[in-house]
């Protein structure tokens, strides 16, 4: 850990100025629950630690112009305590509930979880189903990209070294079904073996509409599965339908990631978990 310098900008402008100069030599620290682990393992070769946990521009959860804004430095505990999120982003709220353990939730941030580009990031599937956009700030301009494009690959960010995520804009939804599911080797403090999120409304004809489905931990980066969504959209809930949706998700996973030893289990578990997640609709 020796030879690293620490810098804590007081506002976004200072931060961007610093990154404009030293972006390539900097690692951003918000909650630190990933950075500290990587640092102890000797996997960080940058010379600057830039602490962005106190930039006011990265705080807050608000409804703005029909969008749900979540600042990048919002902690998982703050997500969990947010009434707005419970109402307009219930799947993400549920993900926060299953995220690591309390001590980690108290410091870990949503921006950090996304920026780390882990294939198992628990906030990703719910952000994907809410069609979230990441708002990025760089030295010259701000831009927005779909949250699924933050990661260029497993643990590989698509952001410029001089950029940072300042927050996310979600499409607020409070549908009939909004859920997040996770399988781990234990109930807390565990990296997901499989995680997923789903949204679905029911129309007056008892057909599913606005179906969104995203799967994590099974492909290089978490992603929505369009054909699973298409299969369910406009259909009436049914056991065989959900079972088929699960099979399709598993098939997609294998197609995208190739056969891996862990898929002997995951192929079944993904199918089972999709079924379990949508099964409350059977009683609708």
């Amino acid at each position, binding site marked *: 850990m020796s030879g690293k310098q620490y810098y804590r900008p007081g506002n976004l402008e200072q931060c961007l100025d610093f990154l404009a100069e030293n972006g390539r030599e900097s690692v951003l620290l918000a909650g630190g629950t990933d950075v500290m*682990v990587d640092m102890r393992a000797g996997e960080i070769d940058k010379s600057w630690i830039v602490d962005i946990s106190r930039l006011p521009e990265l705080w807050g959860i608000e409804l703005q112009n029909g969008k749900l804004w979540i600042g990048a430095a919002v902690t998982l505990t703050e997500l969990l305590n947010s009434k707005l999120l419970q109402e307009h982003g219930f799947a993400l709220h549920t993900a926060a509930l299953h995220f690591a353990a309390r001590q980690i939730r108290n410091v870990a941030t949503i921006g950090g979880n996304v920026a780390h580009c882990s294939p198992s990031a628990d906030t990703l599937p719910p952000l994907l189903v809410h069609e979230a956009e990441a708002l990025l700030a760089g030295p010259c301009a701000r831009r927005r990209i779909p949250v699924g494009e933050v990661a260029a690959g497993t643990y590989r960010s698509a952001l410029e070294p001089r950029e940072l995520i300042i927050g996310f804009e979600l499409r607020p939804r409070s549908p009939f079904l909004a859920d997040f599911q996770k*399988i781990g*080797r234990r109930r807390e403090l565990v990296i997901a073996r499989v995680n997923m999120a789903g949204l679905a409304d029911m129309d007056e004809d008892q057909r599913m509409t606005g179906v969104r489905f995203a799967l994590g931990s099974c492909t290089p980066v978490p992603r929505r599965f369009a054909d699973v969504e298409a299969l369910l959209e406009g259909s009436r809930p049914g056991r065989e339908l959900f079972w088929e949706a699960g099979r399709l998700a598993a098939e997609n996973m294998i197609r995208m990631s190739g056969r891996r030893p862990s898929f002997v*289990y995951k192929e079944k*578990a993904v199918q089972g978990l999709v079924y379990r997640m949508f*099964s409350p609709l059977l009683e609708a």
Partner: protein
Amino acid sequence: MNLVYQTVGQSIDKKDGRQRLRGEPLFSADLELENALVLKVLRSSKAHAEIESIDSDAASALPGVVQIFTARDIPGRNLMGIINKDQPLLVVDKVRSLGDAVALVAAESETAANAALQAIRVDYRDLPAVFDPQQALTEEAPLIHAEGNLLCRRDIIRGDIHAGFAAAAVIVEQTYQTSFVEHAFLEPDAGAGYVDSDGVLVIHASTQNPHYDRSEVSGVLRLPKERVRIIQAATGGGFGSKLDVNCQGFIGLALYHLQRPVRLVYTREESFLATAKRHPLTITMKSGVDSTGKLTAAKVRILCDTGAYGSYGIAVVSRAAVHALGPYALDNVAIESLGVYTNNPYCGAMRGFGAPQAAFASESQMDLLAAELGMDPLKIRKINALRPGSVTVTGQKLEASVGYLECLEAIEPYYQAAKAEWLPAQVPEYRRRGIGLGGMFYGIGNTGTKNPSTARVVMDQTGQATLYTGCADIGQGSSTVLIQILAETLGLEYENIQMVAADTGRTTSAGATSASRQTYISGNAVLDASKKLAAILCSLGARQLKTAASDLVLRKGQVQDRRDPSRGISLAELAALARKQGIELFGEGRFDPVTTSLDPETGQGDPYATYAFACQLALLSVDVLTGEVRVDKVVAAHDVGRAVHPENVKGQICGGVAMGLGFALMEAFEPGKTESLKDYHIPTCSDMPEVIPLIVESEEPSGPYGAKGVGEPALIPTAPAIANGLALALGERITTLPANLERVLEAGLKAGLFGA
């Protein structure tokens, strides 16, 4: 006989409990030592290889590096092991597993020490390696030690199994497999030391057995025992792993050569890599039962993979055999238990010494037999339960304190209610509920060998008592229990008793904190010492009170006439009197349980003086779509003889259930893969079921105030109870532990439960 005691049976404040809560006890990493050097160990990256050369010149020249030691620097016997000595402190010519210690670095700083580790060049020549114990026994297998790959064997032969199986109505045979398990105590291994003004090497260490440490370190350094002093530092758990000499030898070696304070603190990764694991066992068990449910015969083969070194392997092999068939009477048995060297990480003591693995097999068999007979699992256990007068598989006749039936009876109302109400309740379609029983017995103390403890109680001139014991309290609570026994016997307030523990410079040996033995064995040594001091006090009091010593009792800080408590004299007065008369007030106690060694051919004998018994009931639900298991409740009935400290007993039971749940569902150390707690999962609070501890007290006549032990028994029934619950829920039995997500899902698939 249900006597009411003053202190025994009361859940008094735990000794040093408040200090612990305030964070005051000093762990080895916290001890202040002036200018202490940092020690680091270079460990093997090969599983089996000859060492052609070790070049430490470049490393030695680095700034801050003080010295680098190899096997050549060891003045004494470079072999360690409490039962058989086969493990070098630093390897001589070859490494036998990943993590073997190759060289020791002493440096001025952590950074310098780590740099030195990087700079040492070791040339290895790879040797063929063997990782499967069955293969290791074949002719063509590479030799791990010159004497061969078979470490030891234990056979138990009794009756006539052919006649027994002929008389059976039902026979079931099954092979069971368990995994390597890491102890995962809170505090990774650590120690620190200095040389005192008398030239004694003083080593503070996180340890379960300071007196053994001393003999090992003095042997390695060829020093008289008096030149080495081991003091147990505050110890954050051990569970058996800290019975091995881990840091102590390295610290001793550095002190010997450098005469400067040193410290060695393992990282979690090093603790995972370089310390003992629980033995994975392969158990093939064939069991027969007649139509009434009475067991008629059993044939068992046990293969224990001890990895590269023996450690406590011989004890595990033997105990697994003795406990292979559980707390049941059986006249016809043939048990073969083998301990085998492989190039896996070495395996040693871990809470239960082979009994948890054996219980998984034998209790699964009991349920299989019951199912074949269409008999209730509780009933078959009752029919075969050991009871007073029963004879064990080693031919030992049990006289008293055989509380297994009482444990089954304590569980029964919970079992019947679970069966009638909980099991049939409506749950989502993809969930299945199950309930399972796990029984066990456990011999207290070492198996058929001497294992004495000693203690000394001293009273000063003001009537204050101090207990000197070698017994290491590693969090389990022995210090509290020993003080309770002393306080009860001398009629003292426990708060005023001073204690000196686990310091080879000031206490005599109490043996290892292992085998659930400290309450029973060291408790008896303290009882003996206290009684001897009580006798002196009574004879002094008799003269003062002009009455016979036999009419006197010690109560409330006084020697009193038992018929007329108003006639008494305080211990303070007696102590002052004794001083005037030049009488020293102390008692020295000793206890060694009465056992006989097991016959080498037939395994017959009385290996333990007493046994603990237990039965646990697990209520669980399984998600057949994902393989997730939720254990909802565990009811745990334990015959502890007498609970000296009931809350502590309950604490042990709850902790044991947690560890047993990990063993059952998630814990598996994969050599060469598992690095630390990041990839080795133990249960969290959220994984814990509600635990209902039930204390059963079937008094042990030879125990201190009737006590036996509970440390290991707490863990043993949990995994079998869960495995049996899973089998009921799934209709398919899992025979390999842990029953993780993959195995549970697969079992559900086989049973045709996976589907919409």
